[in-house]
């Protein structure tokens, strides 16, 4: 009950947000939303199923590039280009997943690291298609659909785009919640907890890992497509291995394997740099220190730490330590 009210308040706040903040912060919130989608996607493979994928930024990049190329070169509508980019990502991720998911633990991480590098090199050097390092410019925002209730939505406006992204974030969260209750979601968690045991229980581990990989890639492609049409220009430098690594860090700081973790993590990732408005390099140094402190002291992430703080056992221990409650015996 308490939880439901809390989430209701969060959603309400997110909906009312454009009333309170100026255009710049709304811009940041749109970026947060897009980032949040990416991390929610990563959460499905890394947080719930286990393998740490470093290819998330590549799927994000492929989604963004496909959608951008289809709309700028072939003149397709965004509403056709986005599903097509999702379709492409399904094909690519099934293929790559079947190949790489046979590897376990950090071998998988290293293999996806290689994939990410390969895809970056292709984006950076395949000049006739991707326009090389200078990237693609003048990507149009999504067109308005001429159908009555939808024709009111004008996605070239920032407020409308904010709601558009928010819609996808809420959709992904709801999807994740229902996924976890389904047979597939339970299989994911079983694989994360103990792969051997899951196999012994009769779960087809490889199949479910590929499913998780593909789902996370689809979410990344949607996010990439939203990103390309929001920012209206993309360059290969936005989809490097460092972006992948950053996504993993954001997930771990927020708390992997939780719903609130990715949201909290991406909020922190976008907003903290803006609040500490200092040289980007110094900011990154501070960020690096925080990452290490988090891994060493709070490996369960902020959400996990919050849960621990609120758990009955911890409160009891604290009160006992502070001598607020006399010991039972």
């Amino acid at each position, binding site marked *: 009950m308490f939880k439901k009210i809390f989430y209701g308040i969060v959603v309400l706040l997110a909906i009312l947000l454009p009333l309170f903040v100026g255009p710049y912060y709304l811009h940041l919130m749109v970026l947060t939303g897009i980032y949040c989608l990416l991390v929610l996607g990563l959460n499905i493979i890394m947080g719930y199923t286990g393998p740490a994928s470093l290819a998330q930024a590549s799927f994000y990049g492929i989604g963004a590039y496909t959608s951008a190329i289809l709309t700028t070169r072939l003149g397709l509508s965004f509403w056709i280009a986005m599903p097509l980019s999702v379709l492409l990502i399904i094909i690519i991720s099934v293929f790559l997943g079947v190949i790489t998911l046979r590897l376990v633990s950090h071998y998988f991480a290293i293999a996806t690291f290689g994939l990410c590098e390969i895809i970056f090199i292709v984006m950076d050097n395949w000049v006739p298609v991707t326009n090389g390092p200078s990237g693609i410019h003048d990507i149009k925002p999504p067109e308005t659909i001429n159908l009555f209730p939808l024709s009111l939505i004008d996605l070239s406006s920032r407020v409308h785009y904010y709601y558009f992204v928010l819609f996808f974030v809420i959709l992904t969260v709801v999807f994740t919640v229902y996924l976890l209750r389904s047979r597939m979601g339970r299989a994911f968690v079983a694989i994360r907890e103990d792969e051997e045991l899951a196999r012994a229980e009769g779960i087809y581990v490889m199949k479910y890992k590929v499913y998780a990989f593909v789902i996370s890639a689809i979410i990344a492609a949607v996010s990439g497509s939203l990103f390309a049409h929001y920012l209206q220009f993309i360059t290969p430098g936005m989809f490097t291995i460092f972006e992948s690594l950053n996504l993993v860090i954001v997930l771990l700081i927020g708390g992997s394997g939780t719903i609130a973790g990715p949201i909290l993590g991406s909020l922190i990732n976008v907003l903290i740099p803006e609040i500490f408005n200092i040289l980007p390099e110094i900011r990154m140094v501070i960020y690096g220190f925080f990452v290490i402190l988090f891994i*060493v002291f709070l490996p369960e992430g902020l959400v996990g730490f919050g849960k621990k703080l609120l758990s009955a056992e911890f409160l009891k221990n604290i009160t006992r330590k502070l001598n607020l409650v006399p010991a039972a015996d």
Partner: protein
Amino acid sequence: MSQFIQQLVNGLVIGSIYGLVALGITMSFGLMGIVNFAHGMFIIIAAFFTYYLVTLYGINFFFASLLAIVATGIIGFIIERYTFRYARQDPINGLMISIGLIYIIENGATVLFGPENKIIAPVFTGTISLGEIIFANQRIFVFIVSCLLMAFFYLFIKKAKLGKAMRAVSENDYAAVLMGIPIDAVIGLAFVIGCFLAAAAGIALGSLFIVTPHTASKPLMKAFVIITLGGFGSIRGAFIAAFIIGVADSFAAGYISLAWADIFSYIIFILILIFTPKGILGEGK
């Protein structure tokens, strides 16, 4: 023909530098199970140290290199003691810590030293020419020193008591503790030795090419390709793979194109991970 030999020689030189980096990563992987992406940062630290000592303070190159290598070792020791030691149980956490370190060191170096290209003045100038083939003296020097360091390292791991202890920890750390090996100290030392090698690689790179705070990423990624090709944790494998990758790279850059050259090594890398994850010698874990 002369271009062929020229590329081959360049490949061997660059391969020997990659090899130094790869051995360090192999050590931290074999002993701690940590994929240390931050290993390349020791390259930058040592290169900048040497650059400043040589250029600003006019210290002799050899003495400056020695100081830089020792300083890098000390920094490495501190890093191992206060960060990686806490991540030994969980390899993914080790990976994350190394990313945090990359953020700190790469950006810290940009703030402290600036993003400009720097070059360490080479000790040996001039060239030797054999027919049409030209060898720069500095390159020959780098190649010989790198090979000597690797050979020394190999002998150390195989013969010295400490080296044997390191191999024992990498085989089975629990059994090593039971045999009375102080594993914290052994792992710390192994990490520091890895830092020494990376520092030597950094100085070599700085004296042949240029140094910027972002120099480290390429040799680092090559080093990962190398340890995969050689088999994870296999020192002999890394040694051989370093030269293969160095030469292959040099040929790909010379005959195909510089931009697309990298993609071949990554494709090889993934194919090896999938089909022969034990590496070319089959010694990997």
